[in-house]
């Protein structure tokens, strides 16, 4: 997985979280994950199809999700509230939407599918060409994990990826 694919997601998560929480965000640990995905708390999953394919998971423990949902929504929400889960999906939608906007401007074309709550404790094991990168964003509300497993779609995008890289 190339950094040119990852950077827009880092930038978008940083911007969306910083704006919503009105405080700076620090990027903590970054690691590669070769084993099957393990859910940490409330997780929203978004699939991308097109020139770049794969999935992104935004994962927060319940307390962090509640704090962030309350901050973004401007009102204190109880931890059990369905709105907290909705907020995690909307947060994922905003982060991925903003990242996709950047990638689209670089020449990549794809479709973003609506976010779904990831409810199972484990995901599927990643194949060799879609190993996942896991990033931790340290916020005032707690840690937000982003798990990205993307790959170039072979048929369509090698020339475009080269063009995008050359164009920067």
């Amino acid at each position: 997985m190339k950094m040119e694919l990852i950077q827009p997601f880092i930038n978008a998560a940083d911007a969306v979280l910083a704006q919503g929480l009105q405080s700076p965000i620090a990027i903590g640990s970054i690691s590669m994950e070769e084993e099957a995905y393990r859910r940490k708390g409330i997780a929203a999953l978004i699939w991308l199809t097109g020139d770049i394919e794969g999935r992104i998971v935004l994962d927060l423990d319940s307390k962090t999700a509640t704090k962030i949902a309350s901050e973004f929504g401007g009102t204190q929400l109880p931890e059990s509230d369905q709105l907290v889960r909705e907020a995690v999906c909307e947060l994922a939608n905003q982060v991925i939407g903003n990242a996709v906007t950047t990638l689209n401007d670089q020449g990549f074309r794809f479709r973003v599918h609506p976010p779904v709550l990831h409810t199972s404790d484990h995901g599927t094991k990643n194949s060799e060409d879609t190993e996942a990168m896991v990033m931790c964003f340290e916020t005032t509300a707690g840690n937000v994990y982003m798990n990205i497993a993307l790959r170039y779609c072979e048929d369509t995008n090698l020339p475009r990826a080269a063009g995008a890289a050359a164009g920067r």
Partner: protein
Amino acid sequence: MEQFAPVRRSKDGQPVRYLIVDDSVFARKNLTRIIEAFGGQLAGEAGDGVMAVSEYERTRPDIVLMDITMPQMEGIEAAEKIVQKHPDARIVMVSSVGYQENIVAALQRGARHFVQKPVKPEVLYEVIKYVLGDDASVASAAGAGA
């Protein structure tokens, strides 16, 4: 949230009525909170494009805030259907996916403006005033400081 001088309808001084369309309940609640800070009133809400078209007929809002990526019927298609029947409809697209093709497609099919998520209230406030034009007046309100 920042305080905004209320935006009213010029013709009768009543609050501007909004239809909010988004498949996320959380996003709809957030937008409702924002338009209420502008002195607006929620006329209706919808979770997809199909419902947006029928809710427009039912509520006849002054402004529609429309998401793009939604199940059943996406926002751009819903905007086109509404504008075909009501050419004076004022639709503002509100989406996290803000690349140029999306914006151009929305504007070509009848939307009046585009605001990218996460929504900054001060940006949406200016867009609402611009889209309403002479049909809106900004009321002077004690303590309003936008």
